[in-house]
């Protein structure tokens, strides 16, 4: 126990004294959050509507221009249809020469069939604008809707991305930290030197795991703290619950790191392996964007990725205030993964 303590403290010291390690595990994730804080996804953006007006009547066009959700450009029919085909427009509205605001001419609406939602929304908006115009022209009274706004938690992209980036950095420091760290220890003969001392290899591994889990706890606390202080994170969950999920995820990724280092002799061998494991998860586990954008089968498969469980778990707790019991699916997923990966690590890990 005394030795495990001493080894844990020693490897923690080694970590803290290594500038690159701090850079990768703490500063880089913070920097990523900082970058993403500039990205805003307000609504779904505006619908770009091309208008071709053959009539001299501008009533409808000025009506449409008042609608915030529409981005309107006027041009010739030929140009507008070309832009529509290029995908630069969602809709093109053609107002015929005979059109008057009080008449009953029909308007033509070309829609981009690749963007059904935008076309649909645009059609509704335009139809409403036309109705509105007609009502006004004829002074027809009608009931109006009065909006009352209720304060809701306005979740921002930062609220989505920050727990995701915590999950990402847990994965990276687990897999890359251990895989590279141990390959270097092996290659430089440091493990060999340990083997001629009476140290129990198991104690050495335990001390490595414990010191890395301490670093993981620091990562989570620093990221959440920075989120609250600098990025206006809407944090409603329990930090302790996040740490529990984080440590579970940490065990899964540390074990993958040990398994990879066991099957490689040098950094050159371990680097591609580690990337093969981490890259698909990085992009498909809902770290940067919601997995709901993925098509059916991909959505199902990526749902089983350990990083998905970790990112979803952290996110549910952080911004939805879920408890560990609410997040039982993620907890269970990570427990199952840790059993699989630890077994794999024990089988694959080699001292020499």
């Amino acid at each position, binding site marked *: 126990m005394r030795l495990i303590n001493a*080894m844990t403290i020693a490897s923690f010291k080694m970590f803290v004294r290594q500038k690159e390690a701090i850079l990768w595990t703490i500063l880089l994730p913070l920097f990523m959050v900082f970058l993403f804080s500039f990205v805003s996804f307000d609504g779904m953006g505006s619908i770009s509507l091309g208008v071709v007006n053959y009539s001299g009547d501008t009533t409808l066009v000025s009506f449409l221009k008042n609608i915030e959700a529409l981005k309107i450009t006027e041009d010739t029919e030929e140009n507008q249809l070309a832009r529509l085909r290029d995908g630069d427009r969602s809709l093109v509205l053609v107002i015929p020469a005979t059109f008057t605001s009080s008449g009953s001419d029909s308007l033509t609406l070309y829609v981009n069939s690749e963007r059904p939602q935008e076309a649909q929304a645009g059609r509704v908006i335009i139809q409403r604008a036309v109705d509105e115009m007609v009502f006004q022209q004829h002074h027809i009274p009608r009931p109006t809707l009065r909006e009352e706004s209720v304060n809701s938690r306005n979740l921002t992209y930062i609220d989505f991305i920050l727990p995701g980036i915590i999950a990402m950095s847990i994965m990276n420091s687990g897999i890359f930290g251990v895989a590279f760290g141990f390959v270097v220890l092996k290659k430089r003969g440091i493990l060999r030197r340990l083997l001629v*001392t009476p140290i129990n290899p198991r104690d050495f591994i335990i001390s490595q795991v414990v010191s890395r889990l301490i670093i993981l706890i620091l990562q989570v606390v620093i990221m959440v703290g920075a989120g609250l202080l600098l990025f206006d994170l809407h944090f409603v969950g329990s930090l302790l619950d996040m740490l529990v999920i984080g440590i579970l995820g940490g065990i899964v990724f540390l074990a993958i790191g040990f398994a990879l280092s066991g099957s490689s002799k040098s950094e050159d061998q371990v680097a591609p392996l580690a990337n093969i494991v981490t890259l698909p998860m990085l992009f498909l586990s809902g770290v940067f964007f919601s997995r709901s954008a993925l098509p059916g089968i991909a959505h199902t498969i990526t749902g089983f990725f350990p990083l998905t469980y970790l990112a979803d778990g952290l996110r549910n707790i952080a911004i939805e205030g879920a408890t560990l019991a609410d997040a039982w699916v993620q907890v269970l997923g990570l427990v199952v993964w840790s059993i699989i990966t630890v077994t794999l690590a024990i089988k694959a890990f080699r001292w020499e």
Partner: protein
Amino acid sequence: MTPVLEVNNLSKRYGDLVAVNAVSFPVNRQEVFGILGPNGAGKTTTLEMIETLRPLDSGSITLDGMDVTKQPQKVKQRIGVQLQSSSFFDKLSLTELLKLFGEMYGRQIDPLALLNEVELKEKAKSYVADLSGGQKQRFSIAAALVNDPVILFLDEPTTGLDPQARRHLWGVIKRIRSEGKTIVLTTHYMEEAEELCDRVAIMDSGKIIANAPPQELIRKLLGKGFKKERVERLASLEDVFLDLTGHSLRAEQ
């Protein structure tokens, strides 16, 4: 007095290559025993089998009364090892490393005393990466001494060192010998074996072809009527170099 180390009929093969071929030798307490031979003679393999790092194909090794294959953990407690190409953790000072190695043997040690022993006291707070080649080797010896071992194994301790660093290291080894430690070292430098060893085993192609004190080996050779083709010069170029650069104890700092 029984030998502290007895190697009997030790063999090791890698595929078709017989690396160590029926090697036997005893090592007595408080002597410096050298295994001398060219690269690939089997010196390191022999040492690594004694150090519990490699399984034996056949033969037996008894160290301080313990069978190395049966009680490897106990043997590890009692030996001090400097490996040929091993390194230490980054970003731990020499003091911290020695304390940590002490803990591996369940000992609380005085790191400064050990560093003093190998003349590295002033580097106590440095990292291994900042040491010169000779300093690294001396630190490696200090780390091998943390458990006050019954035998100290040094595998080619001076390979790759410049003449000054080599002489400096010889000084350290001689002092450790004078304190009564048993030392087993390998080398491919004849003058090193002659300078340091009480007894040398000459190894070639996995076999020990001679085993005696250096002076006795030389006497035997001369007894066979051997004459050097050229008369030995009274000084060599190495002596010139050492004289010009300020002798061995200009510590490389």
